[in-house]
């Protein structure tokens, strides 16, 4: 018999941002920039910050930009993932979908 627990329902979206514990150095740069407190510092110093209020994320991406170690990934919820179409071939892809093409545009933003 497996064990199960009485826990609250999950909120949606589940994981607007994910922090990779392998890459995270626990500097809290992301938590310091999160204006909605979706990410909060870990009470244990040096440990990865905690994604505590995913339901309040407004997908500003500031945490991703703040992380110098590439440890944070932002993830739009399913209802926000739109399609794009490769003009020449007519193939359609979805942002974050299963068959997305490799990144082919690498220019940084202007300025």
């Amino acid at each position, binding site marked *: 018999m497996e064990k199960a627990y009485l*826990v*609250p329902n*999950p*909120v*949606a*979206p*589940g*994981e*607007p941002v994910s*922090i*990779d*514990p392998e890459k995270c150095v626990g500097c809290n740069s992301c938590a*310091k*920039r999160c*204006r*909605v*407190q979706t990410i909060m*510092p*870990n*009470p244990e110093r040096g440990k*990865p910050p*905690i*994604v*505590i209020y*995913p*339901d*309040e*994320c*407004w*997908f*500003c*991406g*500031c945490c*991703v930009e703040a992380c110098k170690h590439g440890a944070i990934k*932002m993830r*739009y*919820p399913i*209802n*926000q993932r*739109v*399609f*794009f*179409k*490769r*003009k*020449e071939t007519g193939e359609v*892809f979805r*942002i974050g979908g299963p068959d*997305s*093409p*490799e*990144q*082919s*545009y*690498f*220019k*940084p*933003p*202007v*300025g």
Partner: protein
Amino acid sequence: MANELNFGSVPAEWPFPVQYGKENRIEVDVLVVGAGVAGSMAGLMAARRGARVAVVDKAPIDVSGSGGAGLDHYLGCISNPDCAYTPEEYMELPPQGPMGGGGDHRSYIQMKGSWNNLLELEKLGLKFRDEEDEFKNASFRDDKTKIMYAYDYKTRDTVRLRGGARLKQHMRDGLVNEPNATIYERVMITSLLTDGGKPGARIAGATGLSEETGEFYVFSAKSVIICTSGVSMQGTSTWTFNSEMFGNGYRADPRNTGEGVAMAWKAGAEFNSEQQFGQAQSTGPFGWPWYGIGNPDNTWHACTIVDNKGKKLPWKDWNGKILETYEERCMPCEGQDYMGNLRPQPYIDPELIANGTYELPLWADLTDLSDEERRGIWGLMVGNEGRTRIAIYDYYNKAGFNPDTDMLQCPVMTPESFAWPRKDWFQGEPNKAAFWKADTLRGVSTDWNQMSTVEGLFASGSETSQGGAGAGSSGAYSGHRAAEYAARTQRAGLDEEQIAAEKKRVYGPVERFGEAEATISWKELWMGMNRVMQQDCGDFRTRATCEHGLLWLDSIKRHEMQLTYARNPHELSRVLECESRVAVAEVYLHLCVANFKVAEENAGKDKQMFIKFVDGELVITFKEDEWWLKAPYAPTYLENYERCTAQEKEVK
């Protein structure tokens, strides 16, 4: 799940020392409430004029404000050297936005100072010009000044900001380096303090709460500038509880909850209203990622749109003329002094969608544009809007989207939604759901000094309907005026009873936690007040329904709002934000009642209406049209401006 502490699966201790009730008393000359674009500039300018300044924001200043970390273009930058009109000329043009004719003294203040404000930002480190000549061949760039323009390439009234996504970082750095200014981040101002604690009396300061430690702040100030963004951005959250999908539906940020409106209203300040019905701006909970879905307007102007089979949609100008070239999409049409908000758009007859001639979905085809135009939209605009630099530009690029080869899907909507001119999806971000309408509330009413009817209380930015980029010049102007006022004014005494009453309100939810009756979460309070607005202030409403709405809100305020709970400083700040939403809803309802009342009495024809709340009574007053150019003011915009900024020049 990488971290078992994520999502509260295993409760972790609050990471900051919790010190509810601990008081910090701070004395300054000028207090700035909210440090978005307007507040940051207000703080900087006031400090440079020698005032001791506190700049307070409930978020980190480098990412705070309705647009987040920055913005990609400066709308209505009429004083720029290449603009076809002077601000004085622009005020006389027909009213078709963004800031032109039909505006008031506040639009003028914004336009007049807009170029100086950009130069100031340039000094702070924003390299907004095309110094690297990346857009040498673009028709939206001036070869001499290297300024890049958007939308209307002939009038050149809107400047694109290279590197604009870091605008707020530059502003924060500027504030940190200003010896007279002190910043307070993660502190939420909860109320205004007035002389003797009396609503409508001279300003004395404000109270605040730290959302990290729960500490209390009492600021004593000679002048206060509210820069918390106005009601213009709050339409949706007043009517709609967004369930848990915060990020999607918001046109503006989720922390824009109306503290400024709430505290100014409670302090007895007068609000400015137009006697007309408008729409609550926002995309609602059915919205798409900001600028992240295909459309031909706003940031994506003037992107080619094709149907699902690749057939191009023709473009039509405001005269109904079919446009042959891309360049024409970026020019005012015949007889138009400037493009303003009446931009050309793709034309599609709803009948042709219904009968299958055009097949949905439509697609935004950046590949059809010249390299400069494509890069101008994707790299310069989408790449520099604070909200989209990572969330769209970086995210979509990594997800495989390539603007050189790919087209982005437009939303599927009813055929009528695409009708010419200017149906839903052409007005910026497409929207599938109908949303509730609101009377137009233009925010805190301010005079030529941008002072409200409460002495010493100033307002800037969206708070006075000068949103977006104009917030910068509006804020700078208020900063100067507030510093001048502080220099010639005695400090008003703080009223300890007023402070104690506010402290009691602020900490109520944490003190109640654990009581059997304290069952109302901040979310429930929010959805509760939304229902009032949906029912009583929806598309169909009467004076009776609006008065019923006020009764309903009052009932909630006296009962459920006294049963809210908070388990940590985060939840506490959210409960207080929802109390602000309730106050915003009240202001809307009062405005509607006032409009019905005035219509019944056939009063105030061709006049501007103002409302305020004093001693439990709604007070409606009127002013002549263009009162800002009538006695005691001078008859021209320029004279008034020069009169108000005279001291500023002496300093320089």
